[in-house]
């Protein structure tokens, strides 16, 4: 089962808040916030972010993914990860969800 983009987004948001100490009340941070331009994730942090995505979702990201304009927001990244996962399973499976798989590891 491939997790929905919203589920990937939830897991990613939890990871980012925890790994980069982003406060719950930070009004500038949401799933459309520019992660790099707004300073939420620095150059070292991007590597950790990719490491999180690849290990949590068992997905291999390519240059086309991580250097795309979409790979700058939680929603954009979630869409890319979802698409990568969906293209390696059958179309029927791609619409399903598996919440257990998207739960981030405790940090």
């Amino acid at each position: 089962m491939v997790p929905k983009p919203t589920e990937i987004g939830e897991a990613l948001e939890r990871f980012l808040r925890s790994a980069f100490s982003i406060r719950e009340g930070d009004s500038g941070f949401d799933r459309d916030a520019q992660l790099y331009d707004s300073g939420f994730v620095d150059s070292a942090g991007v590597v950790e972010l990719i490491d999180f995505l690849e290990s949590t979702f068992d997905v291999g990201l390519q240059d086309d993914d991580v250097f795309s304009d979409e790979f700058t927001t939680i929603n954009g990244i979630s869409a890319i990860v979802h698409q990568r996962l969906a293209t390696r399973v059958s179309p029927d499976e791609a619409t399903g969800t598996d919440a257990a798989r998207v739960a981030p590891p405790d940090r």
Partner: protein
Amino acid sequence: MVESMLRIRNLYWADARFQPTVPTEDTGGLTAMLATLRGQFSLALPAPRDTLILVRDPLGVNKLFFAIDEAGTVMAANYLVDLVSPGVPFETVYSVPAGHFVEIDPHGRTLSLRRYFHPDAAARREAPALDAAARRIREHLELWFARLAADLGRRRVCVSLSGGLDSSMVAALATKHFSSVTAYTYGYAGSDAPESEDVRSARRVADFLGVSLRFVPATPDEVLGVLEDALCYGQDWREFNVHCAIVNEIIARAIVRDAPPAGGEEPPLVLTGDLMNELLADYAPLSHAGREIYTLPRVGPERLRAALVQGLDAGDREVGVFGHHGIDVVQPYGLVVDQLLSLPAAFIGGEGAKQRLAREIAGELLPSFLFARTKARAQIGDATGPGGIVSTLQRAGCDARWLRRAFSRRLVVEDERSLDGFIRLGRYRFLREFQHGRNRRHGPEAD
């Protein structure tokens, strides 16, 4: 069609052949040929049907920037400043990524980006036991030093010796293969600081190897005096690369002062131990004055190595800095990239991994104290005492934010925020497709 401002000399080999012709008749032949090349190069090659091919070396040691103006002229340069000074807007400058080539048809307005070198492919190869892997690395290093001596041995040869394992191993092999070698080492020259531990280590290594050591001291004023050139020719604003570029700028000036270039003479050659830390993921964040500097991603050694190797794409702390003084740099560890990348995670990263490997590779060539020594960084000096580039810059208020601003001023970056998109994930900005209408040249020449 192409305005070439490529002024860094290319130094590359296909097996034993020095600087062979690179064919451009078909991309299949080009890709096959490029896969055999090792060394450092940035090439702008006219190709059939009025196209142009820009090629950059596997690790991105030489930099290759380009912009395309409205008339379809491709301007290619090793230095950003060579593009922005005549009026090319910084925001329209792109890079050819390491290990890639770009084929541009300026009139048909097409551009294609292709990768020919895959660091992951080398990293995935199965490696033998540590001693066998080390033997293989040593054999290839000997082979490459023999090639360097045969093709570049007529030059004045210098080694940038920090006093650490990597540069000491390069110095040892250089001493074996070249008839005359001078080691250069930088040291902080503040009145409040005794000679630092890394300088003392460099002296001991030079004595052991029997090479003459040229100690290059620099006062805080001298450090600050080279900062602008370090930013401009180091082509980076990030602290680690700027600090390294300062050390190299100071050494480069000393090399030129010691023997000013004479007409018709081949340029000096500097050998350095750079790249080994990236290829073995042997970096750790440092603490200085209660602050963590040189932050690294908190990931495992293989992921860290991949990120560090990819990060070689951006920043020009050695070749660019020495190059603008007319000095060529060779980083021998980059020539054995395949052998170093094939080392599995168990051999890299972690306490003592570098020492174990270095001892296996060239233990008999080096003094034993080196293997027990705690790593020190030239830009910091002695971690326990005063002095060093980091302290000097901090006292002068040249922190990370200041460096960004200074870089933006020097490289005519109108909107400083665009720097965030200029280096991302360790790579300079690159193009995947032809950009219509973004390639206008402005400034005095176009007005």
